[in-house]
């Protein structure tokens, strides 16, 4: 039987009198990178927060590796890493301390080795003992990425991971995503950056009013069509 990595069926989310996701369904396979575009408030971030177990959902099912998301949630969460536009980092702790803390929370026993590899991988050596509140937004974002990949998750959820990143950091990010993909991992990305999104992903989605308004596979032929659709949907919203 073919194992579906992530399968979302008829997901509904209502928050404070507003429908954020409406009968949302999506399937992603291993080794795939899917990117969601969409105007602000279309439900991109909420979707990622739901899959990252930060926000609860009202109706619908999520299956990860054919296992119900709400049952035995702990083991599933070990396979997921999340980056949102909140960094989840503590201002008064240094980069190293933050990473060590999250290693322990994730139940990783040899956290020293893990923290050093992560610091190396994201080129953070310079900042290892700097308090997070003194870092620039871009560096914080890099630490957040390091934090999300500490436990080597097979599923990566990235909400605007490119925000505030300079070109070098963006390159690191894209390398990470490529590596992740070739090692059989899966990534779901939400972004506003069309170029970045199209270059890293296999399938592209446009979300509007909590539903998929348009979806396509990314290859050169329909890039322009996609661009056109994106402009249309965003304009409608304005």
């Amino acid at each position, binding site marked *: 039987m073919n194992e579906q990595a992530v399968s979302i069926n008829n997901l509904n989310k209502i928050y404070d009198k507003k429908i954020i996701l409406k009968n949302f369904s999506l399937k992603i396979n291993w080794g795939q990178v899917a990117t969601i575009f969409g105007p602000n408030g279309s439900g991109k971030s909420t979707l990622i927060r739901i899959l990252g177990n930060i926000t609860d959902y009202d109706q619908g099912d999520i299956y990860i590796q054919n296992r119900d998301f709400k049952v035995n949630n702990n083991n599933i969460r070990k396979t997921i890493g999340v980056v949102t536009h909140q960094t989840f980092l503590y201002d008064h702790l240094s980069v190293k301390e933050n990473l060590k803390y999250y290693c*322990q*929370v994730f139940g990783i026993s040899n956290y020293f080795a893990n923290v050093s590899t992560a610091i190396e991988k994201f080129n953070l050596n310079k900042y290892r003992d700097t308090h997070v509140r003194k870092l620039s937004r871009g560096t914080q974002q890099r630490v957040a990425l390091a934090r999300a990949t500490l436990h080597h998750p097979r599923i990566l959820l990235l909400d605007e991971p490119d925000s505030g990143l300079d070109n070098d950091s963006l390159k690191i990010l894209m390398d990470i995503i490529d590596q992740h993909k070739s090692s059989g991992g899966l990534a779901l990305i939400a972004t506003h950056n069309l170029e970045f999104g199209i270059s890293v992903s296999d399938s592209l989605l446009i979300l509007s009013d909590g539903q998929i308004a348009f979806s396509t596979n990314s290859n050169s032929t329909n890039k322009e069509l996609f661009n056109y659709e994106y402009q249309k949907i965003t304009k409608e919203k304005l």
Partner: protein
Amino acid sequence: MKSFLQPIMAILWKDLLTEIRSKEIITPLVGFSVVTILIFSMLFSGSSQLSNKFASSILWIGFTFGGILGLIKIFSSEKENNGMAGLSSSSANTEQIYFGKLISTFLFLSIVELIMLPVFGILFNIQIFILELWLITLLGTLGFSAIGTTFSAMTMNLRSKDIMLPILFLPIVIPVIIAAVSSSTEIINGGSLSEIHIWLELLVVFDALFILIGAWTFRFVTEE
């Protein structure tokens, strides 16, 4: 067992480190509580008989109001840094998060008590180095933290949370205050352990029950 304790200790370590660096909880709390009992002792001065009877009530009034300020602060660092979201996206259980926060709340409030008791002893001329008195204080503080952690996490997401916390919290904590005040009055006036054992039993049962309820309900107050 070790894997269950690891996240709890991590949360405790993180809270302590943050507190050592930012000094947001213990210092203002001690200041507030000490000023409160100072004012009361000033008002009751001259009537030593009266003040002896009310001494422990005053200690607990100071501690309760200071403690509420502390509880408002306990989750504000998590709120500012979105630490709760980070924790719930990790593989830590809500029970582990609850115990981690409970232990750090308990530790902070106990440190405050540790500083307040000598001040209290000096102001009211009371011998404070009695084992039973410390036992009661610790049990009371534990019950205080057990409920406080849950309500602090709950009110974090409410509108006008600074007012809602005392409104929700004070009626619930009344049994703890009654038990702590009347048993420590007994002890201060030379009572023995056998006279207050019923209060100790009440406090132990209260603490145990509300830690269990807190651990179970914590997932519901932190889910978004």
